[in-house]
Structures are given as C-alpha cells and as structure tokens.
C-alpha cells in the first residue's frame, strides 16, 4: 500500500484542491480608513470560500462527527475517555519530540522523551499519564508552531474541508507532521494500515467530544459563529506559540543535585 495513502493525506489533498477554487472578499473603499483597518486585521481575503466550507463542514459534522462524539461521551465514563485521550496523546509524542528538537527546546524535548518512555511502559501503552505526576507535564508542539517560532507569519485565514480552521503556515505544518510521525511510514501491512485509520478516527472523535459543550455554546449564542471560531482559532494558536516562547525552565531536571552556589 502506498505511504501517500495515509489517512490524513486525503483531507490535505482536498484542502489544497479547494484552495484552487476560491472567491475573494470585497475590499472596503480606501477612504473608509477604519473599515480598511478592520479588513487588514481580519486578514481573511478568501472569506466567501471559507464561509462556504464552514457551512459544509458544519452540516457534515451535525450528521457524522457530532453524534459520534455524543455517543462516545454517553457510553464511556469520564475516566475511560481520559485514558483513551492519554493513549492518543502518547502516540503523537514522537511528533511532539521532533518539533521540540527542531524548536531547539531541550527541556521540552526531554519532557516529551521521558513522557513517551514512562507512559508507554508504566502507563500501559499510554493509557495512564504517570509521567505527569513525576514532573513531566504534557505540552503542545506541531510544525505550524515551529514555523511560527522561526518567524514565519500565519498568512490569511483558511477554513478547509474536513480539516477546519487553519492558515497556510499551519497547513504546511500539518503536512510536515504527517511525514514526521513515524507510524505514517509503517504501512507495509493491512493491520497497521487499519490501525492507522482507527487512530485518526478515534482521534477525531476524542477531539470533538472534548469541545462538545464549548462549540454548542458558540453555535447557540454567537451572532456570527464563523467569525467567532476564526477569532478563537487564532487566539488559541497564538497562546500556544506564546507558551513555548515563555517556557524558560532550566534544562536540569528537578531531581538532579543542584550545583553548589558560591556565597559571598
């Protein structure tokens, strides 16, 4: 089976195709300075196309992922769902580790490596987050964030089929992360291939189930849910990137004997 048939390659291909068929948002007249400033700040020149895909995704979600996530939440108790979530996070840790290293963040890379080793073994295949209690907290890292730390701007907002909110930088990062996830390259057997699909399927349900109440709230109360989600996505990404920038923890782990300090 070709490795390019990775489950995530499909939405990526559809998204790239979608970018070819785009309509542009009208620019406000130049004499309306505040409206022009708003237009620049929104940075959503493909808004009509984005809104079309937002609507399509929303309709698709209402009959597929949302009911699946609701059923998942109904059937499994809190603790069991948390364990499945831990397992999925653990499987993604090789990608997080790769990005920690490329970001030149040794402390974070060390945390991820220890998390993967501890949780894969003592945490029974990642189902239990033992490492968290041992001083190795979980953190986010993907290639979109890595690019941001290298100074790559996000570019205009994109709402893509299946993938959802994104931008050129994060979409490129998404593609790279498919390639840097070791399991992508293990598609020699049907079983592994099926497991890979199961991973992506379960991951989608897990992610959706964790935002059921928040997204419901947005759809129920927002006057323009599309604009609200655009703002939420951008703020969330920015805060994740900021969190990496502000992580100034020392590289030496807490249990390492502290070197003697000179006192005057």
């Amino acid at each position, binding site marked *: 089976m070709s490795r390019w048939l990775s489950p995530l390659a499909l939405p990526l291909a559809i998204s790239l195709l979608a970018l070819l068929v785009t309509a542009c948002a009208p620019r406000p007249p130049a004499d309306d300075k*505040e409206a022009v400033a*708003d237009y620049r700040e*929104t940075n959503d020149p493909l808004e009509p196309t984005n809104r079309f895909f937002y609507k399509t995704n929303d309709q698709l979600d209402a009959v597929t992922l949302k009911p699946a996530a609701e059923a998942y*939440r109904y059937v499994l108790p*809190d603790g069991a769902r948390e364990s499945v*979530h831990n397992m999925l996070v653990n499987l993604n840790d090789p990608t997080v580790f790769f990005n920690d290293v490329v970001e030149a963040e040794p402390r974070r890379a060390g945390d991820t490596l220890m998390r993967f080793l501890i949780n894969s073994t003592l945490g029974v295949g990642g189902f239990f987050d033992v490492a968290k209690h041992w001083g190795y907290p979980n953190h986010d890292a993907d290639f979109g964030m890595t690019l941001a730390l290298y100074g790559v701007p996000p570019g205009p907002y994109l709402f893509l089929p299946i993938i959802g909110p994104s931008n050129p930088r994060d979409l490129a990062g998404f593609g790279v992360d498919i390639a840097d996830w070791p399991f992508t390259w293990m598609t020699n057997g049907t079983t592994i291939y099926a497991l890979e699909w199961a991973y992506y399927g379960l991951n989608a349900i897990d992610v959706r189930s*964790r935002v059921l*109440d928040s997204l419901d*709230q947005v759809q*129920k*109360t*927002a*006057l*323009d849910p*599309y*604009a*609200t989600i*655009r*703002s*939420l996505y951008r*703020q*969330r990404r*920015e*805060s*994740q990137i*900021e*969190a990496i920038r502000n992580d100034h923890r020392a590289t030496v782990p807490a249990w390492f004997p502290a070197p003697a300090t000179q006192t005057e």
Partner: protein
Amino acid sequence: MLKRRQVFPLIGLAPALLWRRRAQAADPAGFVREVGDQLVGVINGPGSTVDKRGQIRQIIDRFVDVDGIGRFCLGRFWRLATPPQRQDYLALFHQVLVTSISGHLGEYKGVRYTLGRVSPHDDTVWVGTTIFRPNNPQADVQWVIATVDGGQKIEDLVVEGTSLRLTQRSDYAGFLQHNGDNVQALIDAMRRTLAQASQG
C-alpha cells in the same frame, strides 16, 4: 450630637477600614476566590436555571466591569450608535455576559475550581484558575482584574488562551460587516438570540 466617647472608637476604626480596603486592593487572588466561591455556590446550589441565572447576574453586575467590556466589544461602532441604542445594547449585553460566563463555568452541578498563579500584565493582574466541570476536560481560565473607579473589577476571562471580550468583539464585528454596519440590526439579533437561549 455625637459625644467624644462615641467619636473616639470611630476614629480608631477608620484605619482598620482603610486597611481592609487596601488589603482588598492588594489581594487579587482573594478577590477571585470571593467571586469564584459565590458563582460556584450558586451553580452547585438549589434552585431552577432561571433562579440561578438571576443570582449569577447579581454577582456579575457587582464584580464585573460589564459596561466597560460592552463598550470594548462594540469597538468603533460604539461611536456610531445613538444614545438610546447604546442604552439598549448595554442592557442586552449584561444578559449576554451572564450567558457567556455561565457557559464557561457550566450550568450543571459538580463544578469546582482551584486557584493558581497571580501575575501582573500591564495595568491589570491575571489570576489563574483551573476549572473542573463534569463531562468536560479541565480548563485553564485566567481572570483579568483591573482597578476601575478605585475598586477591583473583572475585565476579562481568558479561557485556554482565548479572551472572552476579544472573541465577543470579533463576533459582533463579523455580524456588523455582513449587515451593513447597522447597530440596530445587531441589537435586534442580540435580543433574538437571548430569547432563543433562554428557551433552550
């Protein structure tokens, strides 16, 4: 007429009262605990959803800078609004904020929170909390505390890195952009959405 005997203890009390005010101003974590305990007490307490919303509204009106947030959320359209429109908008905005804050804390029993780090941010202080709601992953919520008219007020909630007032502002700007910058259309839509939310 007050006698000297009565006045002296009052003079003695004044520094204590002043001290209490100062202590309050210097203790944003205590302030957040006071508000948080009251909110959680209402959510986990007895009463119907309508009763609880009424009680939450009282707490929010007392501790949150609702009018300030409301003006911020309307952005440049605040200047375009007529005085009666501003009044209508702010009145509705009080209800919007109640729905929004209740939504973040959850309207079901079993909500609890822990206090985290306190850190200064420009002219505000951020107090970190972690909110635990049944059926939902834990959420990191920062309470942005500002000094308004000499007292402490909540100016924003930053939920998992997303600012409540910034998100609300984007929502209104998005709506207005597609409705010819018409503030009255926004007010009507707010009224409709609130009516629907209170039914559902």
